[in-house]
């Protein structure tokens, strides 16, 4: 049954990614098709997660691939908040290919199957995985907004703003949304790390490379919030810092998962 929902979700995300590319060239119908692709894909993936949760007697997304599946759903959920607005369709160009690609990786890693006995499951694990993934989804969206900021700034610098004038979000809006998304995601990451350490304390395990990198990620985003809100940083340097934080997220999410999930 899980497969029954997986493929529609994958196809819809893929269609949205292609349609967003088409919308960038010829705005209009392609943009609307993309938006519906996101909505239908999200519904199918929600059904997939519901089936996984219904079949499992524990936390079904505690494996690396499973957590990737949940992560994709969180990213698309966060994207849906703005993504359906015409002005933010360009953000879909960054988010939807990523969502389709990562969902495929999750499928190849076995993270989209319905597993009856996922191995282990405690309240702290659920909190840890859920909160960290929600935070990472927020950071991913913030990175998409930051990339859109750089693209917009480049167009303005090169005096090529005329064609899409009024159809894309302003620099100030993009920067403010990036900062707000990070400001919301950072407490979730903090709580997720604390929950992880509590669980680790009970099991007696030692700090691994992924945990160290997650702490470094936290430091970068905490610095961003401090500099942006306390010291008044604005513009490209704040945006570069947000993207630096996302580089850590990519490493944590994709490059160092083996030791931690083992």
């Amino acid at each position, binding site marked *: 049954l899980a497969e029954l929902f997986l493929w529609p979700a994958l196809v819809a995300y893929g269609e949205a990614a292609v349609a967003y590319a088409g919308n960038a060239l010829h705005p209009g119908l392609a943009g609307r098709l993309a938006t519906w692709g996101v909505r239908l894909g999200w519904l199918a993936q929600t059904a997939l997660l519901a089936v996984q949760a219904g079949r499992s007697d524990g936390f079904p997304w505690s494996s690396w691939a499973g957590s990737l599946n949940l992560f994709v759903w969180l990213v698309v959920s966060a994207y849906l908040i703005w993504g359906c607005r015409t002005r933010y369709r360009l953000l879909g160009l960054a988010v939807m290919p990523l969502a389709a690609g990562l969902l495929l990786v999750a499928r190849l890693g076995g993270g989209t199957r319905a597993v009856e006995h996922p191995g282990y499951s405690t309240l702290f694990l659920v909190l840890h995985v859920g909160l960290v993934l929600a935070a990472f989804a927020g950071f991913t969206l913030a990175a998409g907004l930051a990339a859109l900021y750089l693209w917009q700034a480049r167009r303005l610098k090169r005096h090529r703003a*005329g064609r899409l004038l009024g159809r894309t979000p*302003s620099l100030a809006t993009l920067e403010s949304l990036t900062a707000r998304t990070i400001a919301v995601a950072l407490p979730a990451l903090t709580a997720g790390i604390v929950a992880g350490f509590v669980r680790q304390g009970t099991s007696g395990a030692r700090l691994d490379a992924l945990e160290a990198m997650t702490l470094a990620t936290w430091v970068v985003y905490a610095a961003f919030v401090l500099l942006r809100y306390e010291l008044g940083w604005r513009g490209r*340097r704040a945006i570069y810092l947000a993207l630096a934080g996302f580089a850590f997220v990519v490493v944590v999410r994709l490059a160092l998962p083996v030791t931690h999930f083992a």
Partner: protein
Amino acid sequence: MTLLLVGLSHRVAPVELRERVALPGPQAGELAHRFAGDRREAACLSTCNRTELYTVAEDADEAERDAVEALCLAAGFGAEELRPVLYRMRDEAAALHLCRVAAGLDSMVPGEGEILGQVRAAYEAGTTGPVLDRLFHQALHAGKKVRAETAISESPASVSSAAAALAGQVFGDLSGCRVLLIGAGKISELTARSLAARGAAISFVANRSLDRAKQLARPLGAEPLALDRIDEELGRADVVLSSTSAPGFVLDRERVEGVLARRKGRPLFLIDVAVPRDLDPAIDGLEGCYLYDIDDLETVVAESLASRRREVTQAEAIVAAEAERFRAWQSSLEVVPAIASLRARAEEIRVAELSRARGLSDRERQAAESITARVLDKLLHLPTVRLKEAAAGADGAVYAEAVRHLFGLGDDAGSGRHPRQ
């Protein structure tokens, strides 16, 4: 009843003619009122680009002659002078034309927004009845729909609005943005007003002479500033708008670079509408500074107009659909009196036959009333639908005549269409 339009516009008449025929607001309404009298509907749309008289009359030829005469009289022309540039349209063509006008498709700048308000004003000042009511509502709806469903009116069409739109791309809505105005010319004043219309505050006006700065600052609600003190404001301003007649740069790269540290990365949008230029082009290379000169702005306007023209095809389709709705409604008017007469005749027969029935109890009479009414409704439903369908095509009048003949219906007494002012 025929819908008729007589008028002229920028497409057929030079400004020397248009300015003489143009009627200020109340005069257009008065012309419509005089022209309508008590037997026609009329509305007059008069702007700097067009003067058009819309009317609904029984005798279209007579109304056309009267309309030409009324426009000539209003303009102080002889009929022979004006007649060659006047266009005349009837029914579908006139309806489509008004829908296009309301959508801005017949304007000099496609999609311009002012015309929609002017069409509404013409309607409100007119002496309208059911046909013009319907026509103007349909046209206003078409105008709004085109603006909502296409991007035809989104992009700026002038240098001043392009500058304001670009500032919007940097700062979003401009409320809370501080504008520093250096010097003042016509374009910079218009640009300042465009920025203010989007919520920006003109905080300072700088000029070589402080007295002149005071003079310029007053109407804009700004503070005057001497030209050598602009560095203080540069650290706080969001937009710098320059238009002096200075032969060299008023602001160079080093001067702007000196205040960047204080801005903490906050963007600075600079608009240079002066020729020769006031702002060193090297400023554009500084982090967070976006400099647009007059050529850049004109390029934006040209691109924007091209993008408006690309939207025209979609807008034309919307307008055609709305005009078609009006046409279908207008055609249905031909059969409405026949349908009304047919139903009235049937009801008359039903009531007469029921009154002949004797010896029925109240309950039986109620049942008979209900049954006969239902039979009548069912019997007349299909002919009514078919008549309306025929009216939407070209056969409405033929079908209406056939119904009158078959059921022995007399001439319909008017359709209750009386103009209102």
